[in-house]
């Protein structure tokens, strides 16, 4: 079983790490890069597959040379065997479309040079773009089936089938079980939890961890970098030139006023409470999906 996990570096949005300028713009240079948090679930799914069925797991990322660090993190965390970084100035400023084209070219190059891929894993949305488009577009470009919102999975190696449980409409209460032929792309949901109910699986897991410690310490030796020529990609189809999306402007989220006035209302004061409810009413109507603040006016 051979799996590739797609992962991406994102700004570390955690408190203390992230840095904004006076206008509320992210200061990219001052904010460290970390692995996209949702990718951890994809990596765990790949590891579980490898523990149960054996095989090989590779990490793959597209981005600046610094993203090698994210691939190293993946090796430390879930014991990937090797890393592939698609990195080239020509790839800068790619939108989701151009990224998907590049990643699919990465997988095709991998299949030519390394070996046939059975499973391609990706996390659910990145913490910076939040589009959720790159995964499905990559599967489309490869012409592979894709199963999203996966919370549990197993492989039938003989039938070459993936069996997965997935959330329907992101609702935890509604779960469907699907099958898909390999090769196949799997997008894990943040609800994904690996399970290891066999002692032999846990022993394998432990052995992989021990073996990985030395490997991750010498990550450079297990890293392959491919540029657009290696990937056989025309610069017109990638990077800024290959991106059909145009970002016209970015509006910073207005900062909350630092001092707000508070009016104390005693719950026993019915007149004051009525006034307060009157203030709330337009917002209540808007979140109910009604036609806007005015629709609430006739209400009681």
């Amino acid at each position, binding site marked *: 079983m051979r799996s590739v996990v797609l992962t991406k570096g994102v700004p570390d949005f955690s408190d203390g790490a992230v840095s904004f300028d006076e206008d509320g713009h992210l200061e990219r240079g001052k904010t460290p890069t970390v692995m996209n948090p949702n990718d951890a679930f994809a990596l765990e799914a790949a590891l579980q597959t490898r523990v149960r069925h054996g095989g090989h797991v590779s990490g793959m990322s597209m981005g600046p040379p610094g993203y090698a660090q994210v691939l190293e993190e993946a090796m430390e965390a879930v014991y990937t065997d090797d890393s592939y970084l698609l990195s080239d100035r020509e790839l800068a400023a790619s939108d989701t479309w151009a990224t998907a084209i590049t990643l699919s070219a990465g997988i095709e190059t991998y299949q030519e040079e390394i070996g046939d891929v059975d499973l391609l894993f990706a996390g659910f949305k990145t913490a910076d773009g939040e589009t959720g488009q790159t995964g499905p577009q990559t599967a489309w470009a490869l012409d592979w089936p894709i199963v999203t919102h996966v919370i549990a999975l197993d492989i039938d190696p003989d039938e070459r089938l993936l069996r997965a449980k997935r959330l329907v409409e992101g609702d935890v209460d509604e779960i469907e079980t699907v099958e898909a032929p390999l090769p196949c792309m799997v997008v894990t949901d943040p609800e994904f939890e690996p399970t*290891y109910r066999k002692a032999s699986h846990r022993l394998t897991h*432990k052995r992989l961890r021990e073996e990985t410690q030395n490997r991750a310490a010498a990550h450079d030796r297990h890293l392959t970098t491919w540029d657009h020529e290696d990937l056989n990609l025309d610069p017109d189809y990638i990077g800024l030139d290959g991106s059909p999306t145009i970002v016209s402007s970015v509006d910073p989220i207005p900062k909350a006023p630092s001092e707000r006035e508070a009016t104390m209302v005693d719950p026993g004061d019915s007149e004051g409470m009525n006034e307060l409810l009157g203030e709330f009413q337009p917002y209540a109507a808007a979140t109910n999906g009604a036609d806007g603040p005015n629709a609430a006016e006739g209400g009681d």
Partner: protein
Amino acid sequence: MTDSNETDREHYEAVVVGCGPGGAAAAVRLADHGIETLVLERGTDAGSKNVSGGLIYAEDSAPYTIDDLFDGFREEASERPVTDYYIHNMAGNKVKSYDLTDLHEDDTDWCDAVLRRPMDSWLAERVHEKTSETGGGVLTNVRVNGLLRERGRIVGVTCDELDPIEADIVVAADGVNSELAREAGLMDWEDPNEWFQGVKAVVEMEPDVIDDRFDIDEDEGVAHLFSGDLFEDVRGGGFLYTNEDSLSIGTVFHLDSLVEEQAEPHELLDALLTHPLLARWLGDEYDEREYSAKLVPDSKKVAHREPYRDRLVLVGDAAGQMQAQGPIIKGMNHAVTAGALAADAFAVTRGNADPAAAGRRYTQMLEDSGTMDKLRPRRYDLARTVGERDRVTDAVERVLDSRVGSLAIGNPIADRLLQRAYNSPFLVSMLPDTRTGYVTLPSIIGEEHGRTLHWESSVEPPSLDERIGDLTYNTDIGNPHIEVRDTSFEASGAAVYACPVSAEDFGGGCYRSEEVKRNGTAATVVSLDTQPCVECGTCAVVADTEWEHPRGGKGVEFREG
């Protein structure tokens, strides 16, 4: 989604439950015999659930010692050797000390102080290395919760975290509160009289300060025992051992006595910590690293003479193999011997069609090696019938308490005889468990022969609240591992004071008592919050509970142990 081939049960030749010294010894011996061995440990790391006083002995007469099985044990896993051993008989501020080194050195090749977290986790690494070669290994965070049976016969184990596993031999080294031993009907939690409870503080101290205050070299260590009236009438005593850069100071009491006297274990520990005798060792800076507690089986009464059933064998605390040789407690060494013997017994009976062949051979080996006679001397069974009978005790107490008795013990010849008696392994193994040995005699010795201490202690031990606050817990929220079956004060009230992390009028502990009104009448009931639990098992004995260990990796995590 569950693993494929659910119907295929996993099978290992040997499953060892628990990776303390007993489990570790069993596992490496099994691996030596080329037996495929899986070790399941419920702690997040071996040792994270384990507490000892603790001294580990290597006896000359033992068939196996820990350094036989683990090369480099003393250099890498233990603390200081015990080169001096004293007992202090206390009466108020008067103390008479005897040198117990003779008793300590009897049948002793060496003896080191240990802290269980570093020790057991060191052992587990070696065990994993060796058992991996057999196709097995050590898994942490896995709690074995029961025995797998087929047609009524034990054929393996069930776990919280794993599917059932079959084995040709199951070694239960799962400690004093062994759920496997209880499920097999081999041990129980019924009688407080069969148990001791130990509580301990690990106290921070720089190595050179230890050398200086105890007047020892860096490769030397001391053990001090304390008995007498500082614990009022509670039967038991205290200890102090030197580690590399800390002290282990604790108290061990008969559980029935704690219950009778309604004593608070943490207060008894504080009585020792703040005694003027310890003031010169502890100095002005008192920094407690960890508070812990443990139930200790009294092997004289509970060591199982046939610790097996079908394919299950018990080793160490799980089988009650904890020897109280008068004031000296030996547990880990016997667990090591028992674990190794159980492994050998399985190796020689491998392939035998009778599932209980290994257990029977193990029992025989415990007898033949003399281990069982150390643990449960038959002569004690004889001495006990007279010694512990109340009327005899009362009579002896009255004589000792009288002027005549005090005079007799108080004369200079008696002083020499007493020191010799304390150092006689034969005599101390027969000391009946009455207050005579623990309180009356030491107090009279202290009073009659003792020197008065002119020291003031400035030690202020942390409160119980602070001690609980300093412990590390991975709480299994919404999944308490202990339930009180009968909440009436009569049935379960003893836990409020006997539990080492509970106290009367303290709301932050496990057990508390509450006044409730039911149908107009007031009653006192006991309520339980398992969050601060240190998993000692005291309440399983003194209260009416449904007691289990927390799931793998959950509950308290000791850093020192």
